[in-house]
């Protein structure tokens, strides 16, 4: 009898909260039930990937040697960067085993390969076998259009005219500073010191001496250019293709120049 009583006593306080707590707490929390109970959210994500575009040749020792040389040249640039295989120039790369081997070799070098683009139907199938997704390359349209056509196509994307997202800097850019124009062109009126970094989605204009690093077309715009009053840069890059001070022609130094991509090559030309 006593035992029973104790059990009852114990059971009541245990049960009470079980019944009352949910009744008190759930309704306010779950007020708009359908929306809040959803266990995930869907967000658009936008990021930059590096595209590796193999030429249509055998993927042999020479290919990997050249790749390794490139990675040594700029080790941090590729660190953990998501990488897409752009097969536009390599229609012959169709055998699943070959694609798998390439993927494995790239991953063993710390490159995070996750997809292919510009793939033929055969290549798409091979990519699927290798666990790679196929990225529609229609997005790349701005890269393929000619210069004059670009402003038009760009403006068509947003329905309303937005203010240009360019950035103007009127002070010297000092060593250790990084100036980013995420949405457009970057204009610097003043010198850019050695050790400073300019990054722009569009073009970069420097009305002064450029001693630091300048990266235009940071999101892949191959029409972006770099202009500067006096060239003494540590690094010039357009849409990921770059040159360092060591491989700039010495006769260009201290001259006004423009830097642009032409036929997949980074050209540096004097102005005026």
């Amino acid at each position, binding site marked *: 009898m006593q035992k029973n009583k104790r059990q009852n006593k114990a059971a009541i306080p245990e049960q009470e909260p079980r019944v009352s707590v949910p009744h008190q707490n759930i309704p306010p929390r779950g007020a708009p039930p359908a929306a809040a109970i959803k266990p995930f959210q869907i967000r658009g994500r936008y990021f930059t990937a590096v595209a590796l575009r193999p030429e249509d040749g055998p993927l042999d020792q020479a290919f990997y040697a050249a790749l390794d040389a490139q990675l040594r040249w700029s080790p941090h640039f590729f660190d953990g960067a998501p990488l897409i295989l752009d097969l536009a120039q390599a229609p012959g790369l169709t055998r699943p085993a070959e694609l798998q081997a390439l993927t494995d070799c790239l991953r063993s070098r710390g490159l995070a390969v996750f997809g292919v683009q510009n793939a033929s139907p055969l290549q798409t199938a091979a990519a699927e076998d290798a666990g790679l997704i196929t990225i529609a390359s229609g997005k790349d349209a701005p890269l393929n259009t000619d210069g004059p056509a670009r402003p038009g196509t760009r403006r068509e994307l947003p329905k309303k005219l937005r203010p240009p997202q360019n950035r103007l800097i009127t002070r010297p850019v000092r060593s*250790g500073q990084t100036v980013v124009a995420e949405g457009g062109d970057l204009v610097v009126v003043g010198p850019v010191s050695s050790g400073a970094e300019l990054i722009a989605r569009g073009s970069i204009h420097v009305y002064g001496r450029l001693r630091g690093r300048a990266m235009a077309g940071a999101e892949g715009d191959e029409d972006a250019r770099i202009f500067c009053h006096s060239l003494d840069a540590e690094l010039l890059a357009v849409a990921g293709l770059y040159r360092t001070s060591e491989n700039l022609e010495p006769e260009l130094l201290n001259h006004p120049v423009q830097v642009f991509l032409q036929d997949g090559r980074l050209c540096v030309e004097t102005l005026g």
Partner: protein
Amino acid sequence: MSKDLKLEEPLGKVIVVTSGKGGVGKTTTSAAVGAELARRGHKTVVIDFDVGLRNLDMIMGCERRVVFDFINVIQGDAKLKQALIRDRRLETLSVLPTSQTRDKDALTKDGVQKVLEELRQEFDYIICDSPAGIERGAQMAMHFADEAIVVTNPEVSSVRDSDRVLGLLNSITDRAGKAGAEPVKAHVLITRHDKSRISNGEMMKVEDVLEVLAEPLLGIIPESKAVLRASNLGVPVVLDDPSAAATAYEDAVGRLIGEQIEMRIAADRRPGLLQRLFGRAV
């Protein structure tokens, strides 16, 4: 403590002497600029921010008179008046020494601000002698500055470090953070200028330095034995016997307070025969 000579409000201007690189002459410059301002009748205090490596007190010749220091004041262990050391040569000049036993973490932003606010009420010029580097000590020294003297040697690494510091002045200081505030006004002071080494190509030309730093030139201090001598004696170089370096500092201070003085590059003359006959030449 004597009464204020001036009736009007003190100017209360905070000037940081900084450089990034070590050994370029920040402390010498702080002492010389402070002493010259004081000699011109401005109430001036020089603060040592190099916690743990204090030198300013030695260069100012008051190392034996340090009882309380900047850190004691920040931590509330002493009153500001107790820590300030009045110069024996110039009554308008004071020194706020730092601690030799603590480290830079003892500098708190609130503490520094409080001390500087108190000093602004009393002094015309508050010269902050920054430690080398761009870490806490240097950042605290520059944080509340109104103006900056960036000391640089005509040498590539010193110039690059100064450039970095100029960038910090425009980004991390109190003035940089406040919307609508004037940015910190920076001046470049070239020290250890050596004509012969520049003409040899061993050192950078003044134009090249200024081209990189793109800020107005406050003065060019020649490399001079007088500087080392004055430091060892514990006398700010402008209060020691006349020398090319002292003249250059005097001119620099004149420019700092807005005088128009033509830039001249002085150098110590080699003692001529007559000088050698008639005694010591500086």
